[in-house]
């Protein structure tokens, strides 16, 4: 039996917020509300990171997801006409049902696995510092870092080329 303590309470609140916001992302009608609930969801997740004492990542999460990505999506939303969605023929019901069953099965499968894992509960919590992350990133994972840099460059080039509006 899991002992109810402060951490758990926080966890539960944040988890419920995250799940609720995630669900709202897919069920809300207005597109702007959806993006907003996404931001809240990410925010809740950032809270979880703090709970796990991964503060650096938590901050990054807020900066990148809640900050940058949400704005990006809102830009994306605004640059395309949101009215252009929702007209015309709806997808067959069977699609949704099958998706639900499929995803449900998958979830059951995953939860069955996760909850049946029986991990030894670790008493001590590992607390990573930004310095440790920095040493790792610039040391052991320096190749990945460089590659990520190129990745961003490539994404940049690609995004510019694709999104650029040329004179006809």
């Amino acid at each position: 039996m899991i002992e109810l303590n402060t951490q758990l309470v926080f966890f539960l609140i944040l988890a419920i917020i995250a799940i609720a916001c995630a669900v709202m992302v897919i069920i809300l009608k207005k597109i702007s509300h959806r993006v907003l609930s996404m931001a809240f969801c990410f925010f809740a997740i950032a809270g979880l990171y703090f709970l796990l004492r991964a503060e650096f990542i938590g901050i990054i999460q807020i900066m990148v997801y809640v900050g940058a990505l949400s704005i990006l999506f809102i830009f994306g939303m605004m640059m395309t006409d949101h009215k252009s969605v929702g007209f015309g023929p709806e997808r067959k019901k069977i699609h949704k049902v099958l998706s639900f069953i499929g995803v449900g099965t998958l979830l059951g499968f995953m939860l069955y696995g996760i909850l049946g894992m029986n991990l030894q509960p670790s008493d001590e919590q590992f607390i990573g510092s930004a310095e440790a992350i920095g040493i790792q990133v610039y040391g052991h994972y320096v190749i990945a870092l460089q590659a990520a840099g190129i990745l961003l460059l490539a994404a940049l080039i690609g995004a510019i080329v694709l999104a650029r509006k040329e004179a006809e």
Partner: protein
Amino acid sequence: MVPVELFLALGAILFCIGLYGVLTRRHLVIVLVCIELMLNSVNINLIAFSSIGPFANITGQVFTLFVITLAAAEAAVGLAILIALYRNRESIDAIKQDLLRW
């Protein structure tokens, strides 16, 4: 301490919600959002393991950093493609993108 399984379960649930969104939402921006959701569930896993997993260490957080980078890049590219698509088709409805088939 909260057991790591709960974090993992949360990750699994978010992952599946994201997946369901990808599979059923017509608005392609939302589809991209859902992908971000799926990637976030990965991050939850990684952080949870990194913090209170059986072999807790810093690597998980490093991994998360890269995942976030990737997610950002992918979102950017995705949106760029979306915009190009919109210019071509006047629509970002997932259902209408069916020129290529059979």
